[in-house]
């Protein structure tokens, strides 16, 4: 079961104030609950808005397969909780889940970057921020700092596993510049997942947490 890894200050963009956030070392039922009952309605509202503005047709909806298939994904969570390969993290502020992360490790999870090819690495399978914190979905996203906090958690996990802080992740298009230019990760290009893959070396990880 999860432990409290620490309490960290997020910035509330709307008020300019600091808000305390708790970082947990496992995704619990209440986080999954928030994911379904608090995150999804905001997305649904956005879809309705786009439909009303006729910017989202039924064809487009069908094409992107916008169904309730997120339940299929949620089914995976109990299985992942039991597997040692999977680690998960949750960020909570104001008693609501603000961010979630899943990472994977194991003898088959290895680095691809030339200088550390085949070395063990922690791979990020999911780094999801709550919709009210995302520019893609709301005009004035609320909390700042969740992504940075979760990345620091992944690096800390990597160090604790004796992987030197090495992490790998596939970025969504709108976050590529963040990972490459702000976090200082190496861009290894688009791979079979059709997403751009980034890796941090030991040195880059050290620099990030400085």
């Amino acid at each position, binding site marked *: 079961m999860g432990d409290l890894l620490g309490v960290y200050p997020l910035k509330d963009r709307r008020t300019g104030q600091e808000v305390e956030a708790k970082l947990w070392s496992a995704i619990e039922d209440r986080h999954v609950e928030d994911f379904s009952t608090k995150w999804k309605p905001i*997305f649904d509202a956005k879809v309705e808005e786009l439909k009303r503005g006729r*910017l*989202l047709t039924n064809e487009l909806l069908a094409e992107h397969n916008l169904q309730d298939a997120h339940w299929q994904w949620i089914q995976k969570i109990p299985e992942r909780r039991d597997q040692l390969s999977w680690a998960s993290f949750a960020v909570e502020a104001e008693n609501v889940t603000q961010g979630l992360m*899943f990472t994977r490790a194991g003898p088959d999870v290895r680095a691809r970057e030339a200088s550390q090819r085949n070395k063990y690495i922690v791979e990020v399978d*999911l780094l999801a921020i709550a919709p009210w914190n995302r520019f893609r979905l709301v005009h004035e996203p609320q909390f700042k700092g969740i992504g940075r906090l979760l990345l*620091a958690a992944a690096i*800390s996990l990597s160090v604790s596993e004796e992987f030197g802080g090495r992490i790998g992740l596939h970025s969504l*298009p709108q976050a590529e510049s963040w990972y490459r230019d702000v976090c200082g990760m190496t861009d290894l290009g688009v791979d079979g997942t*059709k997403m751009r893959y980034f890796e941090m070396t030991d040195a880059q990880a050290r620099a990030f947490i400085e």
Partner: protein
Amino acid sequence: MEMLISPDWLRRKVELDPDVDTDAGPSMAVLESAGMFLPAELVPADDAKVVNLIMAFGVLVRQLRRQRQWTIEELAKRARVDAEDLRLIERDPHNKPRPRVVHQLAVVFSMPERALMKLSGATVTRDEAFEEEAKRFAAKSDDMSKLSKEEQRALNDYVKYLVERVT
């Protein structure tokens, strides 16, 4: 496991971080297609301010290209991006260009990437002065194949502004 950062570290870093989404992971992409999060191309840039910025970005790219007397195809080759992406950038202010394309253009034109990210809507800004300058610059362009003297001057002034004054 032990967390290697302190609350103060986060506080310090967050101050300087850009305003940008940071989601990642193949599961994230799965969730996007499962309808949990809207894929980027379905979120139109309908905010009037963003549209103005993107229009200025398109003008800037077009002017920089014309200054070097490159065709769209040539720029596409040099920047290693799709010609179609460039056509959209130069013509459609409702199309938010992908950060990677903006990055490649910043490199090929030797322009400060942060400024271009702000201009193209890839990073969000609430900077009124920046928006004003962008609008002013965009208004000065004309649609001739060769840059006029006025356009050259306007372009050079605007580039200077982006390099020196924008963080």
